[in-house]
């Protein structure tokens, strides 16, 4: 399916929505589909500083554990607590209710290292 145009992406199938210096981060619809039923997510705590492309948690389906990487550096300002009780929200609405964390970005220039929707789609087509 087509990726939302207003988002940026990583090769590891995360998306990021930029709003001033706040980045909202999740995994793509392609990622949730290939993982299957998501049963657990482990996310960094509010206040933690994270570095671009570092492993910051896991997403688990019934059968598998997948690492989660952050598209940007900064301080975690919010975590989607709803996912604790309802991790399946990631399957239902990967770009909406299934968001993971919000980060106050420390280096806006980092977004140059991310993929556009078209670039991400090309990657998946390979």
């Amino acid at each position, binding site marked *: 399916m087509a990726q939302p145009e207003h988002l940026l992406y990583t090769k590891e199938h995360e998306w990021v929505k930029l709003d001033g210096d706040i980045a909202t981060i999740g995994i793509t619809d392609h990622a949730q589909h290939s993982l299957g039923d998501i049963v*657990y997510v482990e996310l960094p705590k509010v206040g933690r500083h994270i570095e671009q492309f570092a492993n910051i948690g896991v997403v688990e389906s019934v059968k598998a554990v997948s690492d989660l990487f952050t598209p940007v550096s900064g301080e975690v300002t919010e975590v989607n607590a709803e996912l604790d009780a309802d991790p399946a929200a990631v399957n239902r609405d990967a770009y909406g209710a299934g968001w993971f964390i919000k980060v106050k970005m420390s280096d806006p220039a980092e977004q140059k290292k991310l993929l556009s929707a078209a670039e991400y789609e090309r990657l998946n087509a390979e």
Partner: protein
Amino acid sequence: MSSTTTQRTALYDEHLRLGARMVPFGGFEMPVQYAGILKEHEAVRKRAGLFDLSHMGQFLLEGPDVAAWADRLTINAVSTMKPFQARYNIFCNEHGGAHDDVIFYRLADRFLLVVNAGNAQKMWGHVTAHLPNSGVTATNLHGARALIAIQGPQSLAMLAPHVDIAPADMKYYFCAEGHVDGVPALIARTGYTGEDGFELFVDGAHAAHVWRRLLADHAADGLEPCGLGARDVLRLEAGMPLYGHELTEEITPVQAGLTWALKLAKPEFLGRAALEQQLQADLYPRIVGLIMRGRAPARQGYPVFSGERQVGRICSGSPAPAVGNRSIATALVSKECAPLGSLLTVDIRGSRHEADVVALPFYKRTQ
């Protein structure tokens, strides 16, 4: 798995048509899921699911001495099986570790032996290496004969109009020769899901016909094609061992809590001395059921602790929809940590998560 090429079952094209995600398993390309593991799991617990198990090894054992011969290679009794009875059994090595866990089906004049897919080559070697000069012959049907399972509370009602035997009269762990949709079949009331169900052994050439007819007639009633992912959750909830997890060449049937299948009244069989000694000394690490207090899934290999001391490892783990969506697991732990109610912790990515030792199985059907 020593096989270098991945084989396809007779139902490969059906799986692709149904949108299955295929993975290599036991030397075959197998469906791990179709619509999704949780949806498939629900179908089996509430209605019925259809499984392709054609990757399982099937050996035909014939000759006057099969039962006595098999009794010397396995821990459970073969000679006492009635015609058309099925029985769970385990082949052990001399140290008591499990070569494989299997099912024997006694037919009118021969036995069908069903072994795990991943062990099929090893088991064919084991069986043929132990064949006597006369009295027992073995034929390897692996890959040629298909196996379709229909499992779930509605499996009897769904299957009945397709067969020319009376499945309602068939007892659990018995079988009959008949036809499914006009195709010759061995029809067995066996399974690996914790539900009532049937397994249909048919020639590979006829498998797609049977598969399509069952789905076409009962998809509207909620029959779902189910993959290996759902099967693993179902068997774990039902407390059934999976080779490579709860049973291995190192983990014995005694450790796995399968002493009900161990017939020490048999005078001699491979592994007997080691198993009897282990049972009597009663010091061995053993398989327990765990329910995690939190939501994080425990996975195979994660270390298990009692206080600061590592006492074992996770063998299998999964979220369990039929156990209140709790995270369940089996673990091999030292004896003093095995009593029901013991509080242990599981190391998940460097942090400790509490788990309670509970009785197996986690799930028992009510109908």
